[in-house]
């Protein structure tokens, strides 16, 4: 059934009527059950009251000085018990049955008879009849009043005809008088019936409204699901071909740099346009997700300093190109880690710093975080201050609206989509904070992002801002990428263009590449032959990447699997890891990132005594690497901050190796997996990629519970740890 047809079927009046009828029946059932229970309790209470009344009014009967229990007491106990027994039993055993409430109606009016007798025919006792009829109306079913009314009416008519003294106290009574008594009862019943019918009508109207609301809700949910699916599909459909465009453009640029064909300016324009299109598409998709309320936030612990440092590292180049000073100063002690969505926080700061650089022609851009624990909840404030063109006061409210920039001239001069600040503010809100601006045209602008830090019980606060070395543009030429280890790679990708692109890139690195066009073929190939690395597209026909990865792991495959996916949301990353992937690359794939990831993964996976193994310390010699070469962090350790990180990692590594040893001795695979997982992330952050890769392998081994392999890997880790070299530090043992 198509989407429209599904919604239309919900909307049909017939289905609404049916649903309304069902809801009405359900509510009516509920009323019956509830009233039955109430009457069951009332029956028991009335029985007890009858016994009490009998004891009060006529406890004993006398024969001069001799007495015995009055028959009224026995009648109250036995007859009252009999009246109570069946209705209570039916409420328990047949609460929904129609006869239950009719039996209740009869029993209730019989209690009226009993009370009138026990109380000596007092006028006051007769009110029990009228009260009972009113109680019976609580069933909201006028038919329930019929048995009670019939019993009272017939009783009075018969007594009036055959035994008028019992009712009227005289031996003669006219039929009219009997009707007069019955008429008062019928009078009440008439109005109770009207009340029941009104009540039923109200319930029916309520049910109709609920049915309509349900239909509307279903339709809204269906539309929402369709929208989500559309967004997910568009993300994949748009990013996949863009991946091909940008990838091949990069390749052509690389080749052109050697051939000098003269097409370079065209290719660069192509790449710029493609990247701009990618930014635009990402922003639009992000905004669509935000507006659909589907921006996913994954709260994890992360180092705010690491996030900001990474942004600074990435944006440094842009700042240098405009000869801007990029500064990073702490305004207070900062927590070592906070609980937030690291990816979204990075995106937020990246947007703000990118904007600041874009709109600043001269001077500097400063990033100044500060931590506030005085308010209601601890918050992290990040001020991004620039000496740019500024924003007029009248425009400051508009800049956060989608597709709005300060004014029309901004678009012409600086370009942009007008979505960045909208998205940034939404991200800040999602992270428990806000994004505000202060600006003066001609002097500059300060954007202040405020985000919640989450629980910080026992959190460590790091010291005051470090040395001025942080303020320098941390120009450090990137290390030369090492020659990649050779190996066999299996690429499982359904897109022909993407296959060609990736094959071209990796073949140029000296890797042997095999390809499969879907997950099914990929699984067969991976099980037939040994591959050192599998690159797995996650969205494929026949068998998708998740299923293929899961199947390979179930078959005992331990080779690393890197997921390639256009779904770049946090939840998807976790989904890939849960399926058995060891890494994750989002499309469009950055060539450098692809090569780096493949290289690091192969270095960690391939045997250490292989002649084709790349040097772990990053110097490219083109010669086979010797095993005793020192290992250093890829971070710029001449900077004290990074040196401290490297030192801290070495201390941490020593601890982790001890814990791994203990876990192996205790045969504790779960603990081993946990330690490996932690080491993987920490080693990567500290710039020791080889340890990160080995930790990935150790995590896989832990899952397969191969303690012997774990022991071998521990020896390898220990040996590598012995080769770590830190500047001006003792070699870690």
């Amino acid at each position, binding site marked *: 059934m198509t989407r429209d047809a599904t919604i239309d079927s919900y909307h049909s009046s017939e289905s609404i009527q049916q649903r309304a009828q069902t809801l009405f029946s359900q509510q009516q059932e509920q009323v019956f059950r509830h009233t039955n229970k109430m009457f069951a309790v009332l029956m028991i209470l009335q029985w007890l009251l009858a016994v009490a009344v009998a004891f009060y*009014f*006529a*406890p*004993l*009967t*006398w*024969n*001069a*000085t*001799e*007495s015995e229990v*009055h*028959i*009224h007491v026995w*009648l109250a106990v*036995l*007859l009252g018990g*009999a*009246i109570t*027994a*069946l209705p209570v039993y*039916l409420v328990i055993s*047949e609460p929904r*049955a129609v*006869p239950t409430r009719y*039996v209740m109606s*009869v029993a209730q009016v*019989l209690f009226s*008879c*009993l009370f009138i*007798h026990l109380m*000596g*025919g*007092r*006028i006051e006792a007769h009110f029990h009849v009228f009260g009972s009829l009113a109680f019976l109306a609580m069933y909201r079913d006028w038919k329930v009043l019929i048995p009670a009314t019939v019993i009272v009416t017939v009783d009075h008519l018969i007594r009036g005809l055959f035994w008028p*003294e*019992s009712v*009227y*106290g*005289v*031996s003669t009574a006219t039929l009219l008088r009997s009707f007069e008594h019955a008429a008062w009862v019928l009078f009440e019943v008439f109005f109770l019936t009207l009340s029941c019918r009104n009540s039923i009508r109200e319930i029916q109207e309520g049910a109709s409204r609920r049915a309509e609301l349900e239909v509307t809700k279903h339709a809204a949910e269906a539309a929402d699901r369709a929208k989500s699916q559309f967004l997910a599909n568009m993300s994949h459909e748009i990013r996949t071909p863009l991946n091909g465009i940008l990838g091949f453009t990069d390749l052509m640029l690389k080749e052109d740099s050697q051939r000098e064909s003269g097409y370079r300016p065209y290719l660069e324009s192509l790449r710029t346009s493609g990247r701009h299109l990618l930014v635009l598409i990402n922003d639009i998709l992000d905004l669509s997700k935000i507006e659909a309320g589907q921006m996913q936030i994954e709260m994890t612990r992360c180092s705010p300093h690491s996030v900001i440092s990474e942004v600074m590292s990435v944006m440094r180049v842009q700042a240098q190109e405009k000869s801007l000073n990029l500064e990073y100063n702490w305004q207070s002690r900062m927590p070592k880690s906070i609980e937030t969505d690291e990816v979204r926080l990075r995106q937020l700061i990246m947007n703000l710093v990118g904007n600041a650089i874009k709109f600043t022609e001269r001077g500097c851009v400063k990033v100044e975080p500060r931590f506030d624990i005085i308010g209601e909840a601890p918050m992290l404030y990040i001020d991004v201050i620039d000496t740019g063109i500024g924003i007029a006061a009248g425009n400051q409210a508009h800049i956060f609206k989608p597709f709005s920039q300060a004014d029309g001239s901004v678009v012409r001069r600086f370009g942009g989509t007008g979505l960045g600040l909208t998205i940034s503010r939404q991200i800040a809100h999602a992270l428990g904070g806000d994004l505000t601006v202060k600006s003066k045209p001609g002097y500059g602008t300060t954007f202040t992002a405020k985000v919640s830090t989450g629980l910080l019980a026992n959190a460590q606060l790091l010291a005051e801002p470090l040395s001025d070395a942080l303020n320098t543009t941390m120009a450090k030429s990137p290390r030369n990428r090492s020659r990649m280890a050779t190996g066999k790679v299996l690429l499982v990708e359904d897109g022909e263009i993407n296959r060609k692109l990736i094959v071209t890139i990796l073949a140029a690195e000296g890797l042997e590449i095999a390809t499969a066009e879907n997950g099914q073929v990929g699984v067969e190939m991976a099980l037939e032959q040994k591959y050192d690395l599998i690159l797995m597209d996650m969205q494929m026909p026949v068998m998708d990447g998740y299923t293929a990865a899961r199947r390979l792991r179930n078959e005992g495959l331990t080779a690393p699997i890197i997921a390639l996916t256009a779904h770049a949301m946090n939840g998807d990353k976790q989904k890939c890891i849960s399926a058995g992937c060891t890494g994750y690359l989002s499309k469009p794939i950055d060539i450098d990132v692809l090569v780096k990831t493949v290289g690091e993964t192969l270095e960690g996976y391939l045997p250490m005594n292989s002649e084709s193994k790349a040097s772990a310390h990053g110097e490219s010699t083109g010669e086979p690497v010797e095993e005793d070469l020192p290992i250093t962090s890829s971070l710029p350790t001449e900077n004290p901050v990074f040196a401290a990180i490297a030192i801290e990692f070495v201390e941490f590594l020593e601890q982790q190796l001890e814990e791994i040893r203990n876990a192996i001795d205790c045969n504790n695979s779960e603990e081993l997996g946990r330690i490996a997982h932690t080491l993987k992330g920490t080693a990567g952050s500290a710039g020791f990629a080889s340890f990160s890769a080995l930790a990935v392998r150790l995590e896989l081994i832990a899952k397969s519970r191969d303690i012997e392999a774990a022991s071998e890997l521990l020896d390898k880790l220990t040996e590598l740890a012995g080769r770590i070299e830190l500047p001006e530090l003792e070699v870690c043992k």
Partner: protein
Amino acid sequence: MKSQAPYVVIVVWAIVLVVGFAVMEQYSLTPGEMHEAALQWPQTDELQRIAGKPTLVMFAHPKCPCTRASIGELARLVTRCRDKATVYVVFPIYKGVGEDWEQTALMSQAEQIEGVQTVCDPQCQLCNLFHATSSGETFLYDSKGNLAYHGGITSSRGHAGDSAGQDAILSVLMQRGGRVSSHPVFGCSLVHLRPLDNESQ
């Protein structure tokens, strides 16, 4: 309820209840024992008859629960026929009973009726004199001392409200005429249930 069993249970239940209510009705309509009353006012020093004024005497067991209704109806009668008759309520006092028999709720109820004199009857002498055997048994002697009514003034045991006995008494007191009438009395026995003789109590 798919099986027939529940309906059978309902029918049985209905039958049990009908029998129960029938027993209750039967009891409430079972009169007490009554013996023939003296047709002329019996002479006694305990109860004074005023010549030319009817005299009404009700005998009440001090603890009979059914007589609560009778005394209640007596109060209504007296209210309607104020000063038209001399009204006595006689409570037999039995030998060997406890102190709680000396002042009972019924005695208090009767004492509160304006125009009614309560009389204690030690040894049940007055009961014997009038041949009263059931609680609530009422004797009305007209202005000439002739028996005008003998019986109860409720329609069933302990049942308040109008009765044929009340109507008969009202006819006499309102001088509407009518012959001597009698209606059943519904109350506890004043005597141990033995044939009436001088030694009965």
